[in-house]
């Protein structure tokens, strides 16, 4: 492809910039190796991760923790885990101890139904509820560094584990709403998610190769376009805006329901956080 050279240039610059963060992430990278190597794990029962639709240069960055810019947020998340904050004088570690033990697998089951709230809650919202209820601290803002770092860190601790959200019982009506969202046409361009990610996955739309829009084990993902990690809800907003639809706010019930559907579509796929995408 004729873009390759220009693209490689960007990657080259990116790699150089990240070399600085090399030493910083070395310690963590040793504990949970990237999923590199066997690519067959990115396909489960015919469901393919966005990884398999990424170009080889982008895959190579994800495969290498030293090159993966998202690792900086993992590192920061690990620091925040131990940091005391709020009027209760507690850190995450005060209640949950060693995150590598207590948080393993947690990412794979969110969003989940919370009886007390009478609706679904996703990982970012769970983190913030711990902050407000248990730590008496202020909630962190969506897609700002602290919340991104904690969500990325917790995602990272489930790396390689299969996505496994629950959609039955009290979660069922919310799952149905998420599914409805996915198939509903919207915006001036009048498209639904399925028009791009089911009907046309594997085809180019201008310069972009459409994936299956699963992304369930990938976010927060490091997007080269964003030059940082971003939430799945930020990705939803982007997809909505591209078709000139009014997006929702990150954390809106509509997006949390959609997240459950999207993560169910990713069932069995390995957690990749922080995945790298274009």
């Amino acid at each position: 492809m004729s873009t390759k050279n220009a693209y490689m240039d960007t990657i080259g610059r990116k790699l150089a910039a990240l070399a600085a963060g090399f030493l910083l992430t070395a310690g963590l990278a040793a504990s949970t190796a990237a999923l590199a190597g066997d690519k067959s794990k990115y396909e489960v029962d015919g469901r393919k991760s966005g990884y398999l639709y990424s170009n080889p240069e982008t895959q190579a960055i994800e495969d290498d923790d030293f090159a993966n810019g998202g690792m900086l947020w993992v590192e920061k998340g690990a620091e925040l885990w131990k940091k005391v904050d709020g009027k209760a004088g507690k850190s995450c570690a005060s209640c949950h101890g060693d995150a590598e033990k207590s948080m393993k697998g947690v990412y794979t089951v969110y969003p989940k139904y919370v009886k007390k709230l009478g609706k679904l809650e996703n990982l970012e919202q769970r983190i913030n509820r711990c902050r407000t209820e248990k730590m008496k601290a202020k909630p962190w803002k969506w897609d700002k560094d602290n919340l991104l770092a904690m969500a990325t860190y917790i995602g990272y601790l489930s790396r390689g584990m299969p996505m496994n959200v629950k959609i039955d019982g009290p979660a069922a009506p919310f799952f149905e709403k998420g599914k409805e969202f996915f198939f509903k046409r919207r915006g001036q361009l009048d498209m639904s998610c399925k028009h791009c990610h089911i009907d046309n996955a594997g085809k180019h739309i201008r310069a972009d190769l459409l994936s299956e829009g699963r992304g369930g084990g990938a976010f927060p993902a490091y997007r080269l376009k964003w030059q940082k990690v971003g939430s799945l809800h930020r990705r939803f907003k982007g997809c909505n805006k591209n078709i000139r639809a009014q997006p929702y706010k990150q954390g809106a019930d509509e997006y949390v329901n959609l997240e459950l559907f999207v993560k169910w579509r990713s069932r069995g796929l390995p957690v990749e956080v922080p995945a790298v995408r274009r």
Partner: protein
Amino acid sequence: MLTSPPAIKKQIFREGLLPMKKSAKAAIAGLTGLAGLALVVTAAQAKVIKDDGLTPYEVVGDVAIPKSLTGKPGDPARGRKLMANRKKGNCLACHKIKQMSDFLFHGEIGPELSDIATNMPDEEIRLRLVNPKFVNPDTIMPAFYKVEGLFRVKKKFRGKPILTAQEIEDIIAYMHTLKESE
């Protein structure tokens, strides 16, 4: 992919059951003479579409809009630019057009359009641009001249079609030149 009843109508036009180069109107007149195509005959009746604030237009047989939306001839040079412009037609997002290879990255979602003028009369192209859902209700291709019945349109774009009537005519004028044999 094309399995809905309107798509079957398209097949009838495509597969030479009807003379391709005749105008859609003439073709539809021919249709009424064919036995066993009752569904098509019913659908072939004309209907006038009045979309909020837009110029009303007449759809014939769910396949064609015979009359120009503006009565003014289109400008093919402008049409070509509109087809590449990401904020306007952005047709290249989905269609490959060899005659537009000066623009990079042609999509592969819809059929190639490099020979469209040989295969499709202007009347049918006009309908495809105004609202392709007449032909395929499940299509990904946007309706470029439609404002009613849309959901959660971003404020900035509310009540406005993607293209104006004249822009549609400009694009048709350029599409009219797309023939591979010449």
